[in-house]
């Protein structure tokens, strides 16, 4: 499709929906608050709005359409269609209904909380945060409140690692902390000596992922936690990468005080173009009083809600992103303990199989040559040096074959990175096909680097000139800005 911008489809007088007539006298608005000019929204009939968006949808991929192993760290897995039905079943529930009218949903919250507590080994879980990053923020807010309550408000440093998600650093900073980032040591592990140097009376917490975004599991994780504990800090586990270790190892068993899960990653709720997602914060008994409120209670007969005594308060409206809570609950209920372990083992098998194939492609490497759990951050450094083609360009060219990948977060500590995480959802044939596409593009890069750099050729649009996007005089973050700057 060569689909215009929606404003270009507008014609005067058309409309896509009629709304109910007032049925009561109109209210006259004084001029101060009355809108003077109608908004310049598009005027379109219903079919035309629908057609426009259906065409746009066809210009998009998604887990359901492609072999989505290229979005490493994001755990792109199958979101069972049946779970969308369950999410739809609560569409007309208002979050402030009286508790007795929502017992079934409160029970889902309660049961999911208990299951996540078992999976992480933690004591209690809040399902309120709207995403993984929001959960990280809630965790740091609890850490802050905990230290403050203990008269240790002077602790003003948070330690994280370079291969933990940037939100660990960014949320800590937003919450007022100084951030210390540990770089990997020569083996690719977070540097324990650097940690030893960093911890001290100012340490509020360690916020760390494991396995890190490289897919490498830090075997000394318990030492890390103990070091931080030894100076009175808390240890907070970013479990965005939990998919390979479900039922294998647990956050609390390594001594962590807090952790979070991304329900849209490990627990299969759909990624939805970037949300709505859902995050879960798990905490030890000591931190329970600080959880965001309300949490769900159960007295053996009825479910209710209460706000913990030292709650950090609301991190989000109402109880949580309920459609995703419902989906995650249903997904775990379809798997059970054995199923979750099969998820983990298969995700890890898939990853190691794919790594085996990728490393056969000349020019591809997996820096540090360590064992990997559920994903790998690879490098095209060798290929790039030989051909001048960058990783991002190879990814764009791969899109011409119906797949894509993501490089990684900045800064590119692994040079010319690409990060693949195949999860348990993909078949051997999928992995073979994916590896074959990358091998093909890599060989194209050798034979005709300019061709690869000019990609894509088979997408809705051609290579984009992004220079204007960083130029305040030219950038156009809305159509009205574009019209003003470029069309008038």
């Amino acid at each position, binding site marked *: 499709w060569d689909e215009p911008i929606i404003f270009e489809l507008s014609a005067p007088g058309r409309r896509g929906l009629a709304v109910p007539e007032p049925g009561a006298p109109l209210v006259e608005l004084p001029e101060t608050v009355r809108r003077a000019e109608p908004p310049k929204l598009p005027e379109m009939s219903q079919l035309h709005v629908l057609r426009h968006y259906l065409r746009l949808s066809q210009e998009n991929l*998604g887990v359901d359409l492609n072999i989505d192993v290229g979005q490493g760290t994001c755990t792109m897995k199958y979101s069972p269609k049946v779970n969308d039905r369950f999410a739809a079943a609560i569409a*007309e529930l208002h979050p402030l209904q009286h508790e007795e009218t929502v017992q079934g949903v409160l029970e889902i919250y309660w049961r999911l909380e208990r299951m996540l507590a078992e999976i992480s080994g933690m004591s209690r879980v809040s399902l309120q945060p709207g995403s993984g990053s929001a959960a990280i923020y809630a965790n740091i807010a609890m850490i802050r409140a905990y230290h403050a309550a203990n008269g240790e408000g002077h602790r003003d440093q948070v330690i994280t690692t370079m291969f933990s998600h*940037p939100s660990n650093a960014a949320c800590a900073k937003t919450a007022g902390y100084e951030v210390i980032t540990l770089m990997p040591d020569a083996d690719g592990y977070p540097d324990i000596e650097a940690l030893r140097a960093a911890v001290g009376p100012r340490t509020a917490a360690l916020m760390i992922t494991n396995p890190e975004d490289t897919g490498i599991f830090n075997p000394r994780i318990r030492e890390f936690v103990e070091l931080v504990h030894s100076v009175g800090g808390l240890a907070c586990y970013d479990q965005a990468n939990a998919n390979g270790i479900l039922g294998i190892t647990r956050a609390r068993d390594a001594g962590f005080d807090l952790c979070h899960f991304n329900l849209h990653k490990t627990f299969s709720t759909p990624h939805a173009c970037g949300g709505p997602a859902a995050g879960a914060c798990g905490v030890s008994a000591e931190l329970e009083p600080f959880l965001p409120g309300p949490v769900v209670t159960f007295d053996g007969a009825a479910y209710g809600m209460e706000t913990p005594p030292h709650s950090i308060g609301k991190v989000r409206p109402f109880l949580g992103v309920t459609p995703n809570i419902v989906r995650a609950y249903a997904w775990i209920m379809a798997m059970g303990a054995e199923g979750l372990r099969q998820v983990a083992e298969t995700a890890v098998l898939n990853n190691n199989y794919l790594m085996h194939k990728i490393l056969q492609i000349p020019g591809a490497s997996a820096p540090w040559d360590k064992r990997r759990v559920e994903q790998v951050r690879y490098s095209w450094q060798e290929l790039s040096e030989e051909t001048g083609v960058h990783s991002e360009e190879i990814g764009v060219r791969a899109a011409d074959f119906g797949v894509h990948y993501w490089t990684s977060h900045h800064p590119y500590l692994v040079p010319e990175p690409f990060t693949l995480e195949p999860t348990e959802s993909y078949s051997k044939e999928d992995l073979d096909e994916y590896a074959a596409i990358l091998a093909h593009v890599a060989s194209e890069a050798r034979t005709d680097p300019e061709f690869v750099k000019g990609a894509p050729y088979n997408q809705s649009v051609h290579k984009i000139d992004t220079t204007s996007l960083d130029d305040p005089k030219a950038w156009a973050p809305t159509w009205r800005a574009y019209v003003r700057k470029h069309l008038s």
Partner: protein
Amino acid sequence: MTHPYIPNAEPGVRAEMLAAIGASSVEEFYADIPADLRLARPLDLPEPFTAEHDLVRHMKGLFDRVTDTEEALSFLGLGCYPHYVPAVCDEVNSRSEFLTAYAGEPYEDHGRFQALFEYVSMMGELLEMDVVNVPTYDGFQAAGTALRMACRYTSRSKVLVSGAVSADKLSKLRDFLSPDVEIALAPVGEGGEISVAEFDDSFAAIYLETPNVYGVVEMRGRELADLAHAHGALLVVGADPISLGVLAPPSSYGADIACGDIQSLGMHQSYGGGHAGYIATQDHEPLVAEFPSRLFGIAPTKVPGEYGFGDVFYDRTSFALREEGKEWVGTAAALWGITAGVYLALMGPQGMRDLGETILARTRYAMDALAGSVTVLHRDAIHFREFAIEVPSSAALLDGLRARGIYGGVPLDDRTVLVCVTERHSITDIDRLAAAVQEVL
């Protein structure tokens, strides 16, 4: 049995893959996990419902124990609103291509970029502002970030917040503006509007909402904008975009930042699952620099006349700069942005105006209908969608109404109940509420 969600759980293919790798078992891949961290027992979880039908029955059993707002007659609002959701909105956001995509490049995910660009563009028209973010989590977060933006922009650390804001949102603001930003509360005046007594150069911003928590349309936006600007501060206005077909957009009376929740624009109530937050400003570079969210812009491609898309000013974000970025960015609520775009395209200027007029009229009708038996607060003010009533006991009234199949409103305190009326409430519905209130009291 091979689980339907795990193709490679099948033993044959598993063995084949292990052989290809040269590994003897999956255990090898876990060798880095120390034995003392290994869980030696199966997780203690309920027996699963592997058969899809059994799962459906189980879930149905749970859902049978809720009574939703289509079964009861609901007047609940306070941040989550029962506006009508057009079928086309659901159709678009349930498309697999949108529902299961994530963060692809502007090539293979051109549709997502365009749909979100169109969303921010339509919001821009509604708000008459040039810069609108790809949605953040919700209106709470939008307000928190808007205030932090104002603080960073002005290099000040104190904000004046209207007292006519919900307690929950205030709780979020207190947590999110900690530890460095001080919140001063502006009292609510007799008429239900914000009342600003003292203001000085130490403030970064005035924050008010319109309609505010009592449903009252604030009349003095221009005056407060002038006051803020006179002191080098910003006016930040929280506005529900659903009202902007009839109400003046905040930019028109001088607001520097508009923010709010877009749940009204085509999202179901979903027990609080339909929220997404917008933040908007004019195209003023220093203020744009303070957005933490992604901003999508239109850009040329190597084919003349073709539109591509990309991130505007990416180097503000934590994706680019980690802790040196503005706050943080991550997965938030993009699908609801796309959906709100569909909603605005369906409604168009005429639909938004008609809708606003219907809501204004029915709100007024409901206030009049209830005024016979209870005290309607701020009755002379213009209300949009919500109003508060004073009753002898909130709990007694609401319990009595619930027994009659009516969710009568949200208790603000022991004696105050907030009532919400939208285009989905027919005149008959309102009459039924009024009659039931009379009966219960």
